[in-house]
């Protein structure tokens, strides 16, 4: 089966995500844009993954992975993807506990709302989710892998919160792929020359929309064929894309 996948979508749980980004509306917008595989990947919490799970379990036209964009102590954003809801919830709880105890002020940072599959607000994350965890990049790699997930440093080409901005280089770690931002991929498509990035050739590359608004969903996506949707099969597919420019 051919999949068109956008793995990096923020919901209304992320303080920077628009309140319109409920799992219900994310799923319906993704389908309208022709996607059949998505992940909600909020900052440092997977509180909206159960709603996504419920919506996709009852919909033959779309499937999902469960994501989280984890902030390392170096303030590097790292996308993590799971195929098991319990695993992502366990990882989310570890991540949440490692955040500094700064209570979120919605007026300053934005709302952090958890919703169910019927669009009802069921709670909110009390601690500000935009802070870095106490985990180093290496520790994030270890923890995500031990929970059965994939580790993909986010938007490596961007001047903020990326491996290149925070460290200045791509460290030798067991990354499953690197994510290029839609800015990079769309400019490349338009034939605009991009600043050369170091060390990209050593990893599979994917691209995601990193949407904070419904209109951004599916702006870029990854397409691939597989009969089995799981972290393991995705890992194999990613590996087969090693050294190629992009899955999109």
């Amino acid at each position, binding site marked *: 089966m051919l999949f068109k996948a956008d793995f990096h979508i923020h919901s209304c749980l992320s303080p920077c995500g628009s309140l319109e980004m409920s799992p219900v509306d994310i799923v319906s917008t993704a389908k309208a844009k022709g996607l059949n595989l998505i992940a909600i990947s909020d900052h440092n919490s997977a509180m909206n993954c159960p709603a996504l799970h419920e919506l996709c379990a009852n919909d033959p036209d779309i499937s999902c992975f469960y994501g989280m964009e984890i902030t390392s102590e*170096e303030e590097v954003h790292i996308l993590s993807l799971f195929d098991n809801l319990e695993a992502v919830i366990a990882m989310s709880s570890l991540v949440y506990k490692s955040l500094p105890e700064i209570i979120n002020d919605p007026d300053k940072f934005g709302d952090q709302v958890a919703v169910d599959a019927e669009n009802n607000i069921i709670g909110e994350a009390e601690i500000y989710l935009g802070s870095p965890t106490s985990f*180093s990049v*290496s520790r994030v790699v270890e923890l995500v892998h031990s929970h059965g997930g994939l580790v993909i440093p986010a938007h490596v080409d961007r001047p903020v919160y990326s491996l290149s*901005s925070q*460290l*200045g*280089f791509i460290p030798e770690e067991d990354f499953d792929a690197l994510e290029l931002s839609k800015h990079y991929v769309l400019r490349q498509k338009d034939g605009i020359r991009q600043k050369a990035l170091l060390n990209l050739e050593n990893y599979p590359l994917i691209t995601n929309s990193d949407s904070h608004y419904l209109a951004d969903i599916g702006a870029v996506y990854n397409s691939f064929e597989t009969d089995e949707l799981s972290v393991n099969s995705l890992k194999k597919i990613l590996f087969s894309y090693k050294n190629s420019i992009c899955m999109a």
Partner: protein
Amino acid sequence: MKVSELAGKLGYEIVTEKYNDNEIADGYTSDLLSDVMGNAPEGAILITIQAHKNTLAVASQLDFTAVLICNNRSVEADAVETALKLGIPILKTKDNQFIASYKVYCEIKG
């Protein structure tokens, strides 16, 4: 001024048991390693709160004489291991970066 002498004068703990006790020529204060790589002078003492092994990778590339970790942040085990391999001393203090920079500046440039 040598690293051991600076640590002694300021009462800063040296986390790494073995290290090269070199002369500190200069200093640089930053928590963004890409900034350190672009702008820090070679042979400096790096004053930072980033207590992980990637800091040591950058320190080794720029031949830093020492890394000073502020705010009493705990230094990760793999960072200590890397530092021992490279011979780069890791120092630690409860001073923040502002105070530590002032104190170190006074010692090496004052």
